[in-house]
C-alpha cells in the first residue's frame, strides 16, 4: 500500500528495518530449526522464513513491532509454508502434500488462543529449541565435510551464501549448488532430523566438533589470499560452539561434554591473540614477537576456566590437549617464560591420541625451544620420510628456522626457498621472503 512518508515515519521505518535485520541475524538459526522440524524441508523452511521477513517489513511499520519478534516470525513462517505447500499441491504428490498441510495446520491452530489476529500471542516457550537437532543433521556423516560446514554456517550461522562462498574462496554458484545438493541428500536419503540416540551420540558429537573446528581454523589461518585472520568465521565458530554447549546442558539425557568444552577453550585461547598476530603493515607476527598486551585477557581467563572444567571430568581428548598447549602460551607473561618442556610433553600426548605428522612437527618445534635446535632437528629428520609433509610449507619453514638457529645457513636458505615455493598465503610469503633476505644479507 503506497502512502506518503514523513521524515519521522521514514526514520521509524528504517529503525524497524534494522530491528528485523537484527532479529534475523540473531534468531534465524533458532527459527529455521523450528521450521525444519515442522516441514522437514530445508528449502521450504528458508523460503517460508523469507516470506515471513517480507511480511514483517510490510506490517511492523504499520502495526508496530510485536513483543516477541522471533515468535511472530516463526508463526507467520509456518503459515507461509502452508501457503507454499498448497500452491505446490496442484502438481504431483498431491496426496502427501495435503497430508503435510494438515499436520502443519494442526500445529499452527493448536498454538493460537483463538484471537482474530496472528500477532505474537505465542511466547518463546511454545517453540522448543530445535537447534541441536539442526546442528546434528547438518553435520551428519552422510554429507561431505565441505557440505556439512556450508550447511551449518548457512542455517545456524546465519551467514548468506555469498559470505560463505567468499570465506571458502569458491564462486557463489558453486556454494549455492553445494548447499542445494546437501539439502536434497538429506531429504532423498532419509537423514533423520533429530539428536542422535545414545548409541550414536559420541561419534556424531565428534563429527559436529570437527565441523566447528574446521570453521574456526578457516577463519584463523587462511590458506590463500590476503587476510591472515577471517575474524567473522572465528567469531561464528565460537558462537556456534557456545550454542552447542548450552543446548547440550539443557538436554536432560546429556550434560557436560569435555571435548566440547575443550574445543571452546581452544578457540577462545587462540582467538585471544588475534589483535597481535598481524602488524600495522599487515605482516605476520610470530608468537614469540607478539605484543602480549594486545591479547584479549578476558577471553584467556574464560578459556582457562573452561579448560579446567573440562579436565575435572577426567576424560582427556585432543581438543582439551590442544587447549592446554594454547593455555600455556596464553599464560606466559613473556615469550621467554613459555613452558616449552610442558608444551613438548603435551604434543607428545596429543600425537598418541591423534597420530599425525603435523602434530609431530609441532612437537619437534617445541622440543627445539626446550632443548635446542639440534634436538628438534633430530625429530624432524625422522619425519622427513612422510610424503604428506614434503608438500606442507610449514614443515620446510620450521626446518629452515631450526637450521638457521643451528648455524646451518646454506641448508636454511634451501629450506626457506622450498617453503616459499609451496606457500600461498600472502602474509606468510612476505615473512619467508624477509627471512631469505636476512640470510642472503649475511
Amino acid at each position, binding site marked *: 500500500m503506497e502512502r506518503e512518508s514523513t521524515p519521522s515515519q521514514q526514520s521509524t521505518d528504517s529503525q524497524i528495518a534494522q530491528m528485523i535485520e537484527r532479529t534475523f541475524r540473531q534468531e534465524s538459526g533458532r527459527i529455521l530449526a523450528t521450521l525444519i522440524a515442522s516441514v522437514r524441508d530445508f528449502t521450504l523452511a528458508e523460503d517460508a522464513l523469507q516470506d515471513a521477513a517480507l511480511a514483517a517489513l510490510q506490517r511492523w511499520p504499520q502495526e508496530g513491532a510485536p513483543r516477541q519478534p522471533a515468535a511472530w516470525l516463526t508463526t507467520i513462517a509456518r503459515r507461509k509454508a502452508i501457503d507454499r505447500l498448497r500452491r505446490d499441491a496442484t502438481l504431483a504428490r498431491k496426496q502427501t502434500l495435503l497430508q503435510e498441510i494438515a499436520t502443519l495446520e494442526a500445529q499452527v491452530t493448536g498454538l493460537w488462543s483463538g484471537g482474530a489476529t496472528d500477532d505474537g500471542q505465542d511466547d518463546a516457550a511454545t517453540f522448543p529449541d530445535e537447534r541441536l537437532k539442526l546442528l546434528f543433521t547438518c553435520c551428519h556423516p552422510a554429507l561431505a565435510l565441505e557440505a556439512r560446514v556450508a550447511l551449518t554456517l548457512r542455517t545456524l550461522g546465519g551467514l548468506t551464501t555469498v559470505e560463505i562462498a567468499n570465506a571458502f574462496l569458491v564462486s557463489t554458484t558453486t556454494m549455492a549448488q553445494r548447499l542445494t545438493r546437501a539439502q536434497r541428500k538429506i531429504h532423498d536419503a532419509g537423514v533423520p532430523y533429530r539428536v*542422535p540416540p545414545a548409541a550414536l551420540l559420541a561419534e556424531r558429537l565428534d563429527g559436529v566438533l570437527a565441523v566447528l573446528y574446521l570453521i574456526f581454523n578457516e577463519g584463523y589461518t587462511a590458506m590463500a589470499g590476503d587476510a591472515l585472520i577471517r575474524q567473522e568465521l572465528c567469531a561464528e565458530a565460537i558462537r556456534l560452539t557456545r550454542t552447542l554447549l548450552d543446548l547440550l546442558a539443557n538436554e536432560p539425557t546429556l550434560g557436560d561434554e569435555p571435548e566440547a568444552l575443550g574445543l571452546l577453550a581452544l578457540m577462545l585461547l587462540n582467538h585471544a591473540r588475534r589483535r597481535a598476530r598481524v602488524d600495522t603493515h599487515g605482516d605476520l607476527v610470530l608468537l614469540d614477537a607478539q605484543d602480549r598486551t594486545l591479547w584479549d585477557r578476558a577471553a584467556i581467563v574464560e578459556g582457562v576456566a573452561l579448560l579446567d572444567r573440562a579436565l575435572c571430568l577426567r576424560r582427556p581428548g585432543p581438543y582439551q590437549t590442544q587447549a592446554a598447549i594454547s593455555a600455556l602460551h596464553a599464560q606466559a607473561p613473556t615469550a621467554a617464560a613459555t613452558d616449552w618442556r610442558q608444551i613438548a610433553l603435551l604434543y607428545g600426548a596429543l600425537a598418541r591420541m591423534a597420530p599425525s605428522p603435523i602434530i609431530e612437527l609441532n612437537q619437534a618445534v617445541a622440543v627445539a625451544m626446550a632443548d635446542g635446535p639440534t634436538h628438534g632437528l633430530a625429530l624432524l629428520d625422522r619425519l622427513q620420510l612422510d610424503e604428506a609433509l614434503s608438500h606442507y610449507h610449514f614443515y620446510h619453514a620450521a626446518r629452515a628456522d631450526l637450521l638457521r638457529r643451528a648455524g646451518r645457513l646454506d641448508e636454511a636458505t634451501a629450506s626457506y626457498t622450498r617453503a616459499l615455493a609451496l606457500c600461498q598465503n600472502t602474509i606468510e610469503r612476505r615473512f619467508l621472503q624477509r627471512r631469505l633476505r636476512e640470510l642472503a644479507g649475511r
Partner: protein
Amino acid sequence: MRYVLLIYTNETQDSQMNEQEQGAIMAGYNAFGEEYKDKILGGDALLPTSSATTVRVREGKTLSTDGPFAETKEQLGGYYLINAENLDEAMQIAAHIPGAAVGSIEVRPVMEFD
C-alpha cells in the same frame, strides 16, 4: 523407507580364501539374515563378474560384451533390499553385513512412485 544395500568386495581376495574362511563368511551372512529378518525384504548373492555379460543397445543395435559394465577395484557380489526407519538405521544394518568388514556397502534409497 526402502534401501538397497549393494555389497562390493574384491573378488580376487575372496577367491583366495580357504574353506575355513569361506565357512565363517557364510555363517556371518546366515547370522545377519536371521538378526535382521524383520527388515530384509529380499536379497541375493551373485556369481562373480567372470560370469557377467553387459548389454547395450545403441542406434537399434544390441552390443554385448563379456564381463561387468566397468572394471572396478571392488566388484558387486550381492545385495539386500531392506525396510528401514531412516538412513541411520540403514547404515547400521549395512555395517553388520560381513562384506562391510573387507569391502564397501553402498546404501541407496529406493525411488518410490506414488
